[in-house]
């Protein structure tokens, strides 16, 4: 259970997140909203990349706001970025090893952990390829594999579907829905793609101008007139 309580983030005079309060219990939860609504700011508040003016994010009694950013990852917070972060001269395996380094996984378990994550997202065949040689889909899957290694508790996916073809999107859907059964982590999915959200998220939260305007069962939320107005500008 993730409890977001009164989270407020300000950039100078702009209130990017305004006392957002949410209780997330489902395995996969969507976060949508128009551009500038505060979606990425909320994921950045999870990661510790923005200063939180007020509020807390508590998971099973641990307030993430109290931890330094890298310690949040070691605790079990994993995230992908809207702009995929793949190092050109590092192999796919080394990307995953870099995450394991900080988590203190014993050497005997490392190889197996890397294999499991790569196998799960379906890129075992490119394990030793350099980042610079990967296509956009492989880069995206490498980034997701990075999120799944080393026993994550929460996985934040920031627009993971960007630039993927329809068949690749289908694979992405399977990957996202399988994360909780396979790895035990709760997933918070930020995306513009309403179809993807509808297919994989049990519940969905909607942000607009930094405020939470709707939260509940995905179908109900997407049918909500307020959400439609905010999203489609009607």
């Amino acid at each position, binding site marked *: 259970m993730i409890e977001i309580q009164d989270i407020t983030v300000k950039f100078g005079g702009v209130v990017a997140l305004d006392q957002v309060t949410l209780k997330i219990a489902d395995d996969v939860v969507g976060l949508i909203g128009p551009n500038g609504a505060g979606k990425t700011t909320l994921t950045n508040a999870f990661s510790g990349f923005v200063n939180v003016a007020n509020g807390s994010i508590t998971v099973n009694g641990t307030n993430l706001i109290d931890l330094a950013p890298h310690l949040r990852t070691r605790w079990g917070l994993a995230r992908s970025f809207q702009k995929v972060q793949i190092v050109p001269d590092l192999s796919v395996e080394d990307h995953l090893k870099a995450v394991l380094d*900080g988590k203190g996984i014993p050497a005997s378990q490392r190889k197996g952990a890397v294999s499991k994550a790569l196998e799960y997202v379906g890129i075992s065949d490119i394990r030793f390829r350099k980042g610079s040689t990967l296509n956009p889909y492989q880069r995206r899957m490498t980034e997701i594999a990075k999120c799944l290694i080393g026993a994550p508790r929460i996985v934040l996916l920031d627009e993971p579907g960007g630039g993927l073809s329809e068949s690749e999107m289908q694979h992405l859907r399977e990957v996202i829905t399988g994360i909780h059964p396979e790895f035990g982590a709760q997933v918070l999915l930020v995306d513009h793609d309403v179809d993807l959200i509808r297919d994989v998220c049990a519940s969905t939260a909607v942000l607009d101008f930094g405020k939470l305007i709707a939260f509940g069962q995905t179908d109900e939320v997407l049918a909500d007139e307020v959400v439609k107005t905010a999203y489609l500008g009607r």
Partner: protein
Amino acid sequence: MQLLTHKSTLVGLVALLLAVILLPMFAGALWVKVLTSAAIFALAASGVSLVYAQLGLINLAQIALIGIGGWIALRLNYGTALPVTLIVLGSGILTGLIGALFALPALRMRGLYLALVTLMVAALFQIMFNAFQFPNGGEGFWGVAQKSAASIRRPAFAETDEAYFRYVLIALGLSFALIGLHKAGRPGRAWAMTRQSEANAMAAGINVTFYKLWAFALSGLLAGIAGALLAGALGQLDARSFLAGEGILLFALAVVGGAFSWLGAVFAGLLYKLLPALFNDWGLSADIALIIFGGALMHAIMTAPHGIAGQILGAFNKEKSDD
């Protein structure tokens, strides 16, 4: 990747072996001295290159750290009876700690601002070296005497210039190996993730501050070892050798030589010490080297960001792919 590393290691080992055996045999007395200095500055340049290539940070204070390493080595040499190799290592470690200490306030900076801060550090030590000079066997903490006949010790097995050159080359080889181990291991991965972006590194659970400091400490260690070896090579150090401007030159040559491989550091050392000596030998002004360095830096920045070493290695790789 592993094969490439393996090959690069093999080529490096063979080159080192040949240099250790052959160079002192065929180079004359003067050139052994010049090449010893070149190898020492290659060692220091490898530290500058490490910080630049791994983290994209510009360190212009390496010359000051060489001076600090030299100062500590001279101080320990005259003040203790410790074995010389231990003094070299101790100087390196202490200089590494000092390097990390100075890097601490600079960690939030990058680019031009970090470069300026490191230049100020170099200027600070330039003044300190001028004011306090290097120990030469005198009394007291600073150990400076007006006239001193005390000579610096070299390792018992490396008393002659030829043997000392071999000693320096082995130290250079070991330093390259240390850098190679770092690049291939946990610090290398952490630096790579940080180079991509700090947010990316933090999201991977990497303690960015620690690994940045670690890079500066390792670079400082190499500078300190270089300084200690330089003191042993020259027998005495002169404050005029450690001007802040020399730090800029060393960084520029590390870029010209190629910051991304050990070969680049070797080129940097050769350009810094061998080229001016060659001009002198040919009866030309050594300052011509500075003009060449300027042109070479322009060339490196515009067309060869991986430096001379990158161009050579690139040519080899191209040949291989043509086969």
